[in-house]
């Protein structure tokens, strides 16, 4: 394994992030920059300085919403959105506790729901999320309203070839 920087560049598989000349256009357009622990430009600088633990422990990588404004506007085509994906994936791989636990819990519950039926069953996924996150009481009135409006179906059509779907999840699991 190379340095933190080399490892990330290899996983992104595109323009190396050293191309960044710190114009901060990514950060100017980032809708989450104001709530991030370190803004996107700072994350790039920290990677260049080898601050692996600070980066993977940061809330930033979980608060990125993947809106892809950064890669769309970067004058050097540094794929910052993909970099954020890579950082989340590395944090999971290296067993770093997610700073925004509920966001990772949501992703896990979402993927478990695919493994269960091939397609997302929203009420079952939401119930599962509530149990896992411990956030039991928010949005209950809204959920009840949706049930009354006929938008929530406990039984929804599933993918028939579940063997193929489970195979995908198992073969890509690390």
């Amino acid at each position, binding site marked *: 394994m190379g340095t933190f920087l080399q490892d990330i560049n290899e996983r992104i598989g595109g323009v190396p992030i050293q191309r960044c000349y710190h114009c901060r256009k990514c950060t100017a357009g980032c809708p989450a920059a104001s709530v991030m622990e370190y803004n996107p430009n700072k994350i790039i600088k920290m990677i260049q300085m080898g601050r692996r633990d600070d980066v993977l422990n940061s809330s930033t990588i979980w608060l990125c919403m993947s809106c892809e404004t950064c890669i769309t506007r970067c004058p050097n085509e540094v794929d910052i959105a993909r970099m954020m994906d*890579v950082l989340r994936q590395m944090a999971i791989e290296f067993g770093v506790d997610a700073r*925004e636990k509920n966001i990772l819990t949501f992703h896990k519950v979402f*993927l478990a729901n695919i493994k269960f039926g091939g397609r997302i*069953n929203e009420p079952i996924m939401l119930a599962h999320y509530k149990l896992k996150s411990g956030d039991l009481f928010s949005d209950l009135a809204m959920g009840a309203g949706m049930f009354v*409006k006929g938008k929530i*179906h406990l039984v929804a059509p599933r993918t028939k070839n579940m063997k*193929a779907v489970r195979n995908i999840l198992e073969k890509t699991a690390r």
Partner: protein
Amino acid sequence: MKVTYYPGCTLHGTAKEYGQSMIAVSKALGIELQEVDDWSCCGATSAHSTNFKLSVALPARNLAAAEKSDQPVMVPCAACFNRFKSAQHYLKKDAALKAEIEGIIGAAYTGSAVVRNPIDIIGNDIGLKALAARVTKKLTGLKPVAYYGCLLLRPPEVCEFDDAENPMLMDKIMTALGAEPRFWSYKTDCCGGSLTLGKTEIVVKMVDKLMTMAKEAGANCLVTACPICMANLDMRASENVRLPAFYFTELIALALGLEGPAQWFKMHNVDARPFLEGLDLL
């Protein structure tokens, strides 16, 4: 025209009115839908945030099934559309990845499917003139801002949809329906997307800003093509700033005089019927 149709998970659930209006509008405009055989979820944000290969393999399974015909693949959900286009992008430039993914999905993948969003199919293939000719009830008094969000547009070389900073296609569709779309600077801003459960307070702030800016632009509603944007606009906006939001297909159906709009509007969290009755449109 015939298209292969990938509804995706939400169009059977929280975006039920998008699914139903999509089917009604397609039928009226002569777009014949053939659903992707035994489709499965695209993986959405959760797959690409946590596992790269999974995020390519899940759309690839559906693309491989869709490739069996040479029809365009119509994907109404902006999130599914983005994941399909991204998977094609990665598989096109990496032969080793393609071979590995074919092994994982147990099927051949050629990349031949042409993935398109219905905004593009209706605006360009059916055409704005043909659409305007079908209007039986002009949407006079409706002043929407077209809200495109992130996933139809970015990154532009992957999505190949419309201008990434100033898309106009949905605005033009609204004009064809007799509505008066307002210009605003927030049409490509993010709604907060999948943070809606894990970080609700951030999403509320982002949606409230969109609503405030829509009002400032003189709009009385918003129109979108994304089930995630719709869920956030419809459910997360604070009461003092919120405006009704619509799927673009609901408004096409309304202008074409099709059956269904009243029951779809009833399904919104913010019931849009009083607003439309006030404009004499319902």
